[in-house]
């Protein structure tokens, strides 16, 4: 007798209300999305979008690029739903994917970014405060670019994405002590570089 066991996913009846979805864990939302409930993946994106976008903007220095990279990251995760294993580590999975895309995009667009940053200096600004803020962010972006990938990743995960030391350790697969050391080194270097610029 031929045996077959189709795997699909369905939610238990009580999970489909919007309030029910927002109370679900990341893993549960992934499993529900895998079962065809797209709304569950939408809730997951909304839950994480502020921090992921903030990390991508700081990393890449350009909002349009950051939006594309973050979107592509979530699309990649959605496409990988059939292979997703629910082990309570969605955050690490998400940020690892995002950082990989940021790394690749950063390297690929580095020369272009520097040209854009230089060109921005020639723009006229009527709002002095906005101009100062933009310059400060440009300086921060260049200072971040001068860090190693390891230091940059830790400082952005901790401060822009607001991950705990343990979550960062899980994402980067390094000990918690190393996370702290790299974080402190990164901030010290950023402060030094920004002090020189100003």
């Amino acid at each position, binding site marked *: 007798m031929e045996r077959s066991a189709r*795997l699909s996913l369905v939610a238990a*009846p009580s999970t489909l209300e919007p309030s029910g979805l927002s109370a679900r864990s990341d893993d549960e939302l992934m499993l529900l999305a895998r079962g065809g409930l797209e709304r569950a993946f939408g809730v997951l994106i909304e839950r994480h979008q502020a921090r992921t*976008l903030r990390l991508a903007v700081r990393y890449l220095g350009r909002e349009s690029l950051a939006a594309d990279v973050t979107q592509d990251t979530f*699309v990649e995760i*959605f496409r990988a739903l059939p292979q997703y294993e*629910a082990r309570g580590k969605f955050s690490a999975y998400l940020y690892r994917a995002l950082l990989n895309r940021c790394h690749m995009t950063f390297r690929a667009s580095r020369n272009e970014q520097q040209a854009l940053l230089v060109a921005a200096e020639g723009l006229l600004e009527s709002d002095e405060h906005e101009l100062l803020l933009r310059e400060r962010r440009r300086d*921060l972006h260049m200072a971040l670019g001068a860090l190693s990938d390891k230091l940059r990743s830790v400082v952005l995960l901790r401060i822009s994405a607001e991950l705990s030391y343990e979550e960062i350790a899980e994402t980067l697969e390094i000990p918690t002590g190393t996370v702290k050391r790299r974080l402190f080194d990164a901030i010290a270097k950023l402060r030094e570089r920004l002090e020189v610029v100003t």
Partner: protein
Amino acid sequence: MSRRSRDDHVRELNAYLEGEVTASERGTLEAKLRDSAEARRTLAQLESVRALLSAPTRLERMDLASRVLSRARELGPLVEAPSPRARRLERAGIVAAVCAAAVAFLLLRPPQETPEFREKSNGSVVDSGRWAGVHAFRAASAAASVPLTETLRADEGLVFTYTNLGEHPYRYLMIFSIDASNQVRWFYPAYERAEENPESIPIEGGRANATLGELVQQDFSEGPLAVYALFTRGPARVLQIEAWLQQLGRAPDRAPKPGDLLQRIVTRVER
């Protein structure tokens, strides 16, 4: 101040901002901050860097979910990998048959349809007297599922939720079934490759009605079906449990180890 001591000082202030200092260290640093304009300036710079890194962006208000799902749909339907569980199930059946012929005769009596059995089966799994258990639902597709009752159609699959409350919750779960032809079939853990020997799935304590999320359809034989949920303190492996079942030579009525929990849900497969 030497460069090294300046670097140490900056690290100290970083740790202070992160809340990674002892009460004594905090006191020392705060005294230094009160006395030193340079220290206050360094702290302000560090706070400024952190503020720049954590500042919200305009993008945070965008409708990212719509963009993602729209793009994902453009890329076409998701492709499910062929279920390895079917192969594994075949192997489980073959292993059972071989062992029965060779050394010990694997005899699992079909589940008894006694009142006691029914009480343990398809009624409310989690009542006031129980604090761990699974709830089974049947469904034919990704549409809404309904609680499993006395019958299961052959074209339906099962999906489960678990509850794991109490002061000392269990840490692992396995779900398997024994049908009228005495075949052992696995729901959890899932298999990736037929040659693997997967481990029980980890579960969270303090959870009620946590969905396991997968609809699993098996090719059950028509007739009585017993679904077992095994809650354990330590991990167990599929072959270990199958060996235990073979040694028992009958349908299990308790967990293999003291302190673990075996729950049985009885239904009937109809074509």
